């Protein structure tokens, strides 16, 4: 019994956990350690919510996470997305040293969200992705159309559209995203998720 469970446990530990709706959209139901994810979106479309919601389950399960280059994080919204704020390190204004700060953090935490303040060079991206692979951690790069991530990522979430649902206030937002990436990206193609829903969570439509 123990023997038969073991390989599963090993395979699991190679994944950084993500919750629904992401777990059904990514291969293996989690983020493979050592891989890089890009979240690509026009500003205001919901990219930041998507990127930060990927931290929720991991932080809740005891993993440390970090957020680099996000100037004014809405921590109430992050908490609503399921992020355990007790294990989040914020580096809001890394100035010119965002890549170095991200590299430092990749040595110590399991997930790093980075929003490069300017176009990321090929060399900097390569270095970070190598570091991630070497450390078995996870990098989530949030990028915009005028400054895309210069290298192909293991998994990419490309936000193509979003639509708010309103009543007497903003209630929820449907976000359309294209899932792609290298290798066995399980559910390629276009998906719609709700982020945030009326309680601030990310949920499957």
């Amino acid at each position, binding site marked *: 019994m123990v023997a038969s469970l073991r390989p599963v446990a090993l395979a699991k530990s190679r994944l950084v956990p993500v919750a629904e709706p992401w777990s059904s959209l990514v291969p293996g139901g989690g983020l493979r350690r050592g891989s890089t994810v890009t979240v690509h979106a026009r500003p*205001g479309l919901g990219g930041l919510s998507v990127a*930060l919601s990927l931290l929720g389950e991991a932080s809740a399960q005891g993993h440390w996470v*970090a957020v680099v280059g996000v100037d004014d994080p809405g921590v*109430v919204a992050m908490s609503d997305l399921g992020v355990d704020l*007790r294990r*989040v*390190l*914020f580096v809001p204004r890394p*100035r010119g040293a965002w890549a170095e700060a991200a590299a430092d953090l990749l040595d110590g935490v399991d997930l790093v969200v980075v929003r490069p303040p300017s176009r990321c060079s090929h060399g900097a991206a390569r270095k970070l992705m190598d570091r991630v692979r070497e450390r078995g951690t996870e990098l989530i790069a949030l990028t915009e159309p005028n400054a895309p991530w210069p290298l192909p990522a293991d998994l990419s979430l490309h936000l193509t559209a979003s639509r708010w649902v309103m009543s007497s206030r903003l209630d929820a937002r449907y976000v359309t995203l294209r899932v792609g990436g290298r290798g066995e990206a399980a559910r390629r193609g276009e998906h719609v998720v709700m982020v945030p829903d009326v309680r601030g969570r990310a949920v499957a439509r």
Partner: protein
Amino acid sequence: MERLLALWVGPLCEERPDGSTLRDHLRLLDALTALCPFVEPVRLGLCVLPLRGPSRFFGGDDAVYAAVRGIVRDVLGLELSLGVAEGLFCAELAARQGVVVPAGETTAFRRRQPLAALGHKELATTGRRLGLYSVGDFADLDAARVAERFSAAVRVLHRVARGELAELPGQRDTRLAARLRSARGEDVVGDEQTGFFGQRSAGDERAQAAAHRVRHRLGPEGVLVARLHGGRVPEDRATLSPWGSPSREVRDDAPWPGRLAGPSPITSLHQPVAVELRDEHDEPVRMGARGSLSAAPTSLVLLRGSRRAVTWFAGPWPLVERWWTAPRRRAHLQVLLDGGEAMLLCAEAGRWWLVGVYD
């Protein structure tokens, strides 16, 4: 002068050593805030609220009294003594006596109170010798004679007796708001970040080491940690403080009536940006005194000069905080721009501020 509804809850006047008195006050104030946002704790056991607004809303004074009695019974299981009069001095007396002083009759009510109601022993004794028995007798005394015979403190009481001042000096406990705040669960703790249950795992140690490196690289403000606490709007509820600095550990288990509903912005500007809202005639949209907009906004002008069309808006939601912060009047508004971006704006101090973005 404004008619005040005063609530006198005898059992709450004496502070119990276990802190439960303050907690009871918080529960009561939170419940009453749902009835009227202007409720104010005056001293332990005494709080007041203006009668006019809730009375209009509930359809009459009697309905408000019933609602208040119901709240005190439900929340504390206690009966209270309730009174109405103009000004805090008379409102407290009315509450202690359980009288509703009809509109316009506060002066007569004040004048027939015994001189001791002014709470000054020396005045009461000396007054008796002079044949002054009631507040009215004292009020009729010429101000110049009062100045000759009595101390500065009594001269102030004379003005209260004449109705020139609405409240006694020291009638309010000025430290009460701060004490209620701390009873809500803000305790100063020294810290480095700790893991669950205050123990540090290997993962915690690694994360701390990484944070050290980044702080070394970027300076003491380089790495921040977040905490949540009570508040009605997202920008009030979060604190980002330097990692490793002593910080306020705050619990957030109290209900906050009137909290801004729905999702919170994922970007919450720690320094709000001044913006302008314009209507269809390109006139600035302003907040009126009664909590409504001067016109529907059709465009948003960022001070960098870029201008965006507003396709939809919701609010404003006025927010008046009286007792746990310095008085602030704010109103929040959600706007949707032509590109689909959603933003949270706040009107304060006569202008609009961008406080959040729902990216």
